[in-house]
């Protein structure tokens, strides 16, 4: 018998290998199925509404006709203002925590708090937003209040994503730079940030895609049922895609069946687009090995 022959053990291992591969494969298929079904249904039921007018017109006739322009613009506005607040703050905090803070109990507590903050349900953020931004700071229900609420909600995720990208830069690079006489800031600017900025961007884009669909944090703080005008300033109220979908499916009578499906599809399309950008980004980066 040669040393290369298959023993009984080998055969049974091979059988088991096949069984598990099959099992895990089936699970994956089971997961993908609902996604395909949902998308398929949205396209099937909603496609008849799509036209240029759908994207460029205001809703008409008690929101049973017309387009979604103010909601689309409102969502972009909300997300942009939210980013404007959360990205600089989040990146700065992450840089502090990763590059400056000593590794002590306090820092670990802060890190723990941030991770837990990311798990707070969005309705709780909504209530915080009402209390803090709408009432205490007296911004009223406005884009500003809603965006800040979104910003608070996304901040922990921005911090965690940024910190992870920073920490992916090997410590040896920092030590080499410091021993050349560089300050911490010089090291961050010349070595650490250039090699983590793409990871940070990827995290931010993913974050945006999550923010786009949020409803709870904006419905009490700045999103409104219907406005005839596009928002002009951050103190205006605005319509938003997610809230619009909620109202036309549950609050307004007589909406044609296809309309909510088309709105939902648009919302998902925005998210998918952002996610693909983020994935493409990562793929380009992975191809560009730097060490």
């Amino acid at each position, binding site marked *: 018998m040669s040393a290369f022959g298959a023993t009984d053990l080998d055969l049974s291992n091979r059988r088991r290998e096949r069984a598990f591969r099959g099992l895990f494969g089936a699970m994956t298929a089971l997961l993908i199925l609902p996604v395909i079904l949902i998308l398929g249904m949205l396209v099937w039921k909603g496609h008849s509404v799509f036209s240029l007018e759908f994207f460029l017109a205001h809703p008409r006739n008690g929101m049973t006709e017309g387009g979604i322009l103010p909601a689309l613009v409102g969502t972009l506005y909300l997300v942009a203002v939210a980013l404007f607040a959360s990205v600089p703050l989040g990146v700065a905090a992450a840089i502090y925590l990763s590059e400056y803070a*000593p*590794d*002590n109990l306090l820092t670990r507590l802060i890190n723990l708090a941030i991770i837990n903050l990311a798990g707070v349900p969005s309705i709780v953020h909504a209530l915080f937003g009402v209390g803090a931004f709408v009432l205490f700071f007296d911004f009223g229900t406005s884009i500003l209040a809603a965006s800040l609420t979104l910003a608070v909600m996304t901040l922990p995720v921005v911090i965690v994503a940024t910190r992870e990208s920073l920490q992916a830069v090997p410590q*040896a*690079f*920092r*030590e*080499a*730079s*410091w*021993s*050349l*006489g*560089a*300050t911490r800031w*010089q090291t961050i600017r*010349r*070595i650490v940030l*250039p*090699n983590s900025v793409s990871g940070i961007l990827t995290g931010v884009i993913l974050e945006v895609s999550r923010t786009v669909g949020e409803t709870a944090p904006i419905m009490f703080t700045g999103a409104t049922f219907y406005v005839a005008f596009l928002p002009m300033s951050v103190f205006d109220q605005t319509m938003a895609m997610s809230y619009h979908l909620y109202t036309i499916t549950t609050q307004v009578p007589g909406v044609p069946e296809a309309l909510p499906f088309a709105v939902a599809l648009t919302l998902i399309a925005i998210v998918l687009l952002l996610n693909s950008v983020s994935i493409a980004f990562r793929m380009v980066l992975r191809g560009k*090995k*730097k*060490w």
Partner: protein
Amino acid sequence: MVEVERDTAVSKLEVEGLTIRYGETVALKDVSLDVRPNEILGIIGPANSGKTSFLRAINRMDEMTDGMHVSGRIALDGTDVRRWRNVYALRRRIGVVFPLPVGLPLSIFDNVALSPRLRGVHDRASLEEIVERCLTRAALWDEVKDRLHSLGSLLSGGQQQRLTIARALSQEPDLLLLDEFSIAVDPVTTMRIEDILKELREEMTIILVTNLVQQARRLADRTAFFLKGDLVEVGPTEDLFMRRVRDRRTTDYLEGRFG
């Protein structure tokens, strides 16, 4: 304790009662020794004997390391390094080469130009002159002169280690610290770097931590033997290797009885 013949006037570096702790762990206990100008001081010793910690204390990297605590006195040219108000200026005078080559993820040119830029040299001609001179001294110029703008972090290990040396030289250091530089480098490159070090001795003082006792024998004027945080002894290299040693533990180590 070890007797140290002291002559402050001719010491480049004086170390007195140096103790290094990481929390509860004592990495180095009450070490005193002198390094003379333009000598190569070899430091040998088994793993965890505190060799790297010793080097890190000299350029005050303990301040960048959580939990590392240094006490005692280290004087560079007679001035306690802890008293230097500008730690960055101190570090610029001390070149460091690490065990694993660290080509920074910058172009080869920028790797060597980084330190000059940090000290305010920005005009292109001067930078080009420095880069060429340092790469030449590190025996790397001929291999990379046609691709100065490709990434330094993607060079081979041996090339990156010479790049690290070129980068250290761009600091125009008067003290060069090498920590087991040959660990990830082929024997041919090791020999080339050893030749470079022999030349550099004319211009600077070198502390060479090495796990190859023969390397210490080839290069070091004097050699210190560290063991478990103690400086067992320090003396002329030939004395150690010709068995004119005072301590049994040194003989044991040199003859490979532990380590």
